[in-house]
């Protein structure tokens, strides 16, 4: 909310101590201890925190996946009770979608958007910190239902009514689901508004929209999808919560309510959500494939417009999740057609990646392997997706393992593999050392084998008729062999994740003896490679002026008279030196963290004791006012000339521009 950001803040350079109201803390200063991470408003640190927390929840969700697969490894096992099984697959889905893949994409968005557009920070640094802290408080709240809520939610990640009502789900699990996702939704909403403003308003001189890297474009489309999809699930979750806590009648069929209402609201959010998950990955591999093919991306404008087209069309396909819900033949026909159409822009992208590689000088680094793997695996998932568009076939496939196979190929094969590609690609930029390539390639191949062994057999199981969400199966059904294969595959994926984490720590240890990888270890194409690794706290010594797409590449290479590519500068020559003298950065703040602590208290209050709501509400309101009243800059820190290019509005405080107070240039953002 913009009003919170800055109604009463002081102008940059005019910090007037006399005007500071009573009880408002001095803004903390940026340092390197762990406390500084709690108050940091640096988009790079926030990105790293998103990444670390997302990996933590990846492990949580992964353990849940292993529990599911262990239960299903052999027929008629009693490893998990049916109730616990329901809770585990629900929490597996919710954790992986909301607490792993979305925040991991947010990590890349936070870290890379300002760097790719040539900005010093996001538009609202404190709101950025707020997004992270609210998200993590929502994530902890959601998972605390295991401890204090009598178990996790047990209604599937889509939580269809009336299964989600108190009659069929009497524990507090669904309450935690509803409130936890509402809290996490606030985080994503704030973050999306923040990042959209950043991209639209804070690009470096010359960085027109159609010079932006494809990744920034895809992340921009993702943020628009988030901004407009989240309010819809917010409505759905409020209705669910009111039904459960205040006995309203939204989803009670006996009172004449319509359970289809939930399905529509959920999937109007849920389908754009699919693209929210996949588009960042598309953007990442659109950066990696050109770099390692030594060619510009094939059909840049097609890439951008197909991403935008996916963003628009993603709103018109939601009812293909409901072909067997009784929505009527006309609706089925319309959504069947629109679902087939949305395969077109996706196909355009796959074609363009292949055409980018065609005739290129390919270098199969780990990042490139993961990127190519993403294209392949996503294509498999996309093709099985087109079979769901055919309503008669989908009627057979609904609620079978064929669906599970499809969306895991899309989300794991397309989404997670793409994000892994991004991790290997940007690791040196973020942490100042490379991930070991040899181990990286082993990681890739273990992942590929594990992924295909886990999810490939599920196609067969689905076509054989094995239902989703069923906690066991009988000996004579013929499901045993492929289930065992899938379970073995799941453990192989677990090994690959463990190996990735091992590689991360081992590479960090080994990096002590290795030289710095330099600003541009991959000979890449976009602006984030024009600054030292790890990224200095102030990002750019001087805001770059952009003249073309692939700006950084054009600073290293030119064409001679025969139109051959010649090198005009080494990366070290062309790169900035990382000298932050005179650069002003926004001061850290504790209020985002305080505000974020208030929200789960309100959540617990709604479930257990309304007095807690009062406490949480006071904390939240107090944090909002303290935030609004805290000085934009720490008055004690030095001041100097910021680069307000077109900042002619006296009300437009420097906090929003990301260049308020001087910090030590040696403050390393990459020190995880």
């Amino acid at each position, binding site marked *: 909310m913009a009003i919170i950001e800055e109604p009463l803040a002081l102008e940059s350079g005019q910090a007037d101590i006399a005007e500071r109201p009573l009880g408002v803390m001095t803004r903390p200063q940026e340092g390197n201890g762990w406390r500084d991470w709690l108050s940091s408003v640096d988009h790079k640190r926030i990105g790293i925190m998103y990444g670390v927390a997302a990996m933590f929840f990846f492990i949580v969700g992964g353990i849940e996946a292993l529990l599911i697969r262990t239960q299903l490894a052999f027929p008629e096992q009693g490893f998990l009770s049916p109730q616990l099984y329901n809770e585990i697959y629900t929490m597996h889905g919710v954790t992986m979608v909301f607490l792993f893949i979305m925040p991991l994409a947010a990590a890349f968005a936070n870290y890379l958007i300002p760097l790719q557009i040539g900005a010093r920070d996001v538009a609202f640094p404190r709101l950025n910190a707020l997004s992270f802290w609210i998200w993590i408080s929502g994530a902890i709240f959601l998972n605390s239902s295991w401890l204090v809520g009598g178990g996790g939610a047990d209604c599937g990640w889509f939580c269809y009514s009336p299964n989600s009502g108190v009659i069929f789900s009497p524990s507090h699990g669904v309450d935690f689901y509803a409130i936890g996702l509402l809290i996490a939704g606030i985080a994503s909403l704030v973050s999306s508004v923040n990042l959209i403003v950043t991209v639209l308003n804070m690009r470096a001189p010359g960085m027109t929209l159609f010079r932006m890297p494809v990744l920034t474009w895809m992340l921009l489309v993702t943020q628009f999808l988030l901004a407009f999809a989240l309010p*819809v699930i917010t409505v759905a979750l409020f209705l669910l919560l009111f039904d459960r806590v205040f006995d309203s009648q939204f989803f009670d069929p006996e009172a004449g309510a319509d359970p289809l209402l939930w399905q529509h609201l959920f999937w109007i959010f849920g389908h754009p959500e699919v693209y929210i998950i996949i588009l960042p990955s598309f953007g990442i591999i659109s950066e990696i494939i050109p770099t390692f093919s030594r060619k510009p991306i094939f059909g840049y404008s097609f890439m951008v417009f197909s991403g935008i087209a996916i963003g628009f069309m993603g709103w018109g396909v939601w009812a293909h999740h409901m072909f067997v819900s009784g929505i009527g033949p006309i609706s089925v026909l319309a959504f069947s057609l629109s679902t087939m159409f949305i395969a077109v822009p996706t196909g355009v992208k796959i074609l363009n990646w292949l055409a980018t590689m065609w005739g290129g000088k390919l270098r199969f680094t780990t990042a490139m392997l993961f990127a190519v793997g993403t294209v392949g695996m996503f294509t498999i998932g996309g093709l099985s997706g087109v079979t769901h568009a055919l309503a008669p076939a989908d009627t057979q496939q609904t609620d079978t393992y064929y669906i599970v196979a499809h969306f895991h190929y899309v989300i794991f094969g397309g989404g997670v593999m793409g994000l892994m590609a991004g991790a290997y690609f940007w690791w040196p930029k973020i942490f100042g050392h490379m991930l070991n390539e040899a181990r990286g390639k082993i990681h890739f191949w273990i992942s590929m084998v594990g992924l295909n062994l886990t999810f490939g057999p599920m196609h067969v199981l689905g076509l054989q008729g094995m239902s989703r969400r069923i906690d066991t199966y009988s000996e004579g059904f013929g499901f045993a062999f492929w289930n065992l294969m899938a379970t073995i595959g799941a453990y192989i994926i677990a090994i690959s994740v463990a190996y990735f984490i091992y590689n991360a720590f081992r590479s960090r240890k080994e990096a002590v003896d290795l030289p710095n990888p330099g600003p541009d270890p991959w000979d890449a194409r976009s602006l984030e490679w024009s600054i030292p690794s790890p990224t200095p706290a102030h990002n750019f010594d001087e805001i770059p002026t952009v003249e073309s797409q692939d700006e950084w590449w054009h600073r290293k290479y030119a064409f001679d008279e025969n139109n051959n590519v010649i090198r005009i500068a080494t990366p070290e020559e062309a790169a900035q030196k990382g000298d932050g003298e005179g650069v002003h950065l926004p001061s850290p703040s504790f209020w985002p963290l305080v505000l974020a602590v208030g929200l789960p208290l309100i959540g617990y209050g709604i479930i257990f004791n309304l007095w807690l709501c009062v406490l949480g509400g006071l904390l939240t309101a107090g944090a909002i006012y303290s935030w609004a009243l805290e000085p934009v800059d720490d008055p004690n820190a030095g001041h100097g000339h910021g680069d307000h290019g077109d900042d002619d509005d006296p009300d437009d405080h420097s906090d929003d521009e990301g260049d308020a107070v001087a910090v030590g240039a040696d403050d390393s953002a990459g020190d995880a």
Partner: protein
Amino acid sequence: MSTATADTHTEHDPHATNTGISNTKLAMWLFLGTECLLFGGLISTYLLYKTRGNGKTLPTDIFDIPFTSVSSFVLLMSSLTMVLALSALQRGDVERSRGWLLTTAMLGGVFVGGQVYEFTSFYREGIGFTTNPASSAFFTLTGFHGVHVSLGILMLMSLVVASMQGRLKPQNAETVEIVGLYWHFVDIVWIFIFTVIYLIPAE
């Protein structure tokens, strides 16, 4: 060096890489865009459920159109006073701006008071939140709107207090403008809600 390349290209249009709208105002516009979908979902829910009485009284059976018309008129007039507050501050007339802000908040308060009265009279006539799907949808939709108006009043009162402390100067006019955007949005949403609930006959 980046400086060298920067020197050769000085003819860039400074506005080509931003929208020309300040960050905070753009953020408020985006936030209001997301609010459209929030109210869209709530209005759709009400439209689906408005005749589902489960054998009990519907909100549409007992509401008082003249009363709500008056309170709607009061809310719409508060948009006028909001504009006057902004215009006064832009002219540098801080005192008058404060007066109009206070008037806006009070008009909003009258509207919320009317809503509280309406809710209690519904409750006395036997329509509570849990009576039937129609009543749940009615109270949720109008309740969400009422909460939005209340938050708007809180923002307006914060501005009034800031103004009394001498912190709301003419150069802060954009802050008032942004609160105004929110306030006008809440009014416009009410025009839709009023039409959907009170003016469109329920068969």
